[in-house]
């Protein structure tokens, strides 16, 4: 398969996935008992009020019609209007998404910067005590619910030792939220922990695989020093697939942000989603899920492309 055929096929696949996501989410939200009208108007609403609401919102039309109406709106960048916040969903998400991106990007970068050297260290010291200790710690970090970790962090580093605030600064603009960088420390650590666990495992496996390759033996035979081989060859060759993995990790990052934002009262998209769920604000829920799914599809697409373009072995079907 040539690279351009691969790209076209891969992009078509991604579009198909997005289409399925819109259908799934649409179906999920319309399978509600009582429908959105009950959620908004409350249990006291009369049948007439519900009928009028349904008519105004276009909810009395057949589902396929509603779906295509919805799709048409989407293509015009219209995600609907929030039931409770009385604002366009696209604007609400537009305000919150940058804050969530700051949080997730910081967590991801922190996670990678720690995970990559840890994984390499483990590979070089394979089956030595260091390897076992880091492996055990990784498994523990992976096994810890994010909200439990966050709580312990708050108790230790905010209550017992008053080093960091337990809440994010509140405010509408991104600058307000970033005004106190110390407040970001605990949320970022909570978000990065499981990532360090997972990516140090990847890095360890990738480094081990590369260390057993012929080129390492050749370089050794040619007299290159271990450290030079590690830095010059193994590091680069192991890094690419691991960084590409980040693309597949996008949904996990957003899942983590959902919990972290709620826990630290950080006003991003996760918190928006959380309050929308409490208020049965379906357009907001639908919009958030769609944005996250889009981000995931793009992330996966990029990961696949990066792996193929950078690593010729993927093309040859070896890796």
């Amino acid at each position: 398969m040539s690279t351009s055929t691969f790209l076209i096929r891969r992009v078509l696949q991604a579009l198909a996935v997005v289409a399925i996501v819109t259908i799934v989410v649409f179906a999920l939200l319309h399978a509600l008992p009582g429908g959105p009208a009950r959620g908004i108007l409350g249990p006291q609403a009369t049948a007439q009020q519900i009928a009028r609401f349904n008519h105004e919102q276009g909810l009395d039309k057949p589902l396929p019609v509603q779906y295509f109406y919805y799709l048409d709106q989407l293509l015009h960048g219209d995600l609907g209007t929030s039931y409770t916040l009385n604002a366009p969903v696209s604007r609400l998400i537009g305000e919150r998404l940058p804050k969530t991106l700051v949080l997730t990007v910081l967590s991801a970068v922190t996670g990678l910067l720690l995970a990559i050297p840890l994984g390499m260290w483990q590979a070089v010291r394979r089956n030595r005590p260091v390897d076992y200790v880091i492996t055990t710690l990784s498994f523990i970090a992976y096994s810890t619910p994010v909200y439990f970790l966050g709580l312990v962090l708050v108790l230790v580093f905010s209550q017992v030792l008053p080093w960091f605030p337990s809440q994010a600064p509140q405010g509408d603009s991104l600058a307000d939220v970033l005004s106190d960088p110390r407040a970001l420390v605990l949320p970022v650590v909570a978000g990065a922990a499981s990532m360090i666990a997972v990516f140090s495992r990847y890095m360890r496996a990738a480094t081990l695989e590369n260390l057993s390759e012929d080129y390492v033996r050749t370089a050794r035979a040619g007299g290159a020093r271990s450290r030079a081989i590690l830095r010059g060859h193994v590091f680069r060759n192991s890094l690419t697939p691991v960084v590409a993995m980040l693309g597949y990790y996008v949904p996990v990052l957003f899942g983590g942000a959902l919990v972290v934002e709620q826990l630290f009262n950080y006003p991003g998209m996760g918190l928006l989603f959380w309050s929308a769920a409490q208020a049965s604000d379906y357009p907001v829920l639908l919009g958030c899920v769609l944005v996250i799914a889009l981000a995931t599809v793009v992330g996966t697409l990029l990961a696949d492309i990066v792996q193929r373009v950078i690593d010729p072995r993927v093309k040859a079907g070896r890796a």
Partner: protein
Amino acid sequence: MSAILQPAELPGATDTPHEGASGVRLAVRRFLRNRLAVAGLCVVAFFVLFCFVGPLVYSTDQTHTALQQVNLSPSGNHWLGTDAVGHDELGRLMYGGKVSLVVGLAAGVLATVIGTLWGATAGYAGGWIDAAMMRVVDAGIAIPALFILLVVSAITTPGLAGMILILGLVSWLVPSRLIRAETLSLKNRDYVLTLRAIGGTHARAILRHILPNSVSTIIVATTFQIADAILLVAYVSYLGLGVQPPSTDWGGMLAAGLNAAYSGYWWLILPPGLAIILVVWAFNAIGDGLRDAFDVRGRG
């Protein structure tokens, strides 16, 4: 959280096969040599005994509230203190653990069953059916499970069976990919082709030949699914979907303890938190050991 891909270790089998030893016996021996995996097995055994036999030895009232003895710190009468409505915390840990273990186990198995059937069908059918089925999987992975669970919690409060069903339905995606890959490599084997040539049905090919030959992959996937499911159960109460009082699970205890944590009632959060971490860690360690012992590629 689900959809985490564990990297496959390098095949670690350096031992030469014992003469006459069957594959299974060899795998068991390799597994038992893995100290972390054996430790995991011991932890799981301990918690099963603790939750199911423990209440017979250490009997407590977990149904009625006792408002004259709330939030007591650990003492001779209550080894781990009492919670906000006067339940003995150690007894509650056993009581809640039952729910966590049963739901996690059932949801993990259910997810693997759904994923196995879906993945095997897709891989066996091939062509556009395969493509369509796997795009559905991609779409499912694009929506994080926590978001779906939170939407569900806005709609309904399920019972125990409902919770198992929901957790199974949001976490079958990763195993389906694994089994599909396995099926792709098995479906053109001679014994499958022969079966088809003599008139065997597709269902027979999948159920009697492809799945039995994927059994090590399925077992390893199940173990990791159980670990993920127990972790997911812990999130469920936090998201407001949990079992209703007086019943509870470790996640529910933890979620209830969140409010008490700032009052310094550490005994309400540390025990359930550590129990979750230990059990999830244990199933992951077992899965890791099984994967190396069976020498199968990891989840991913």
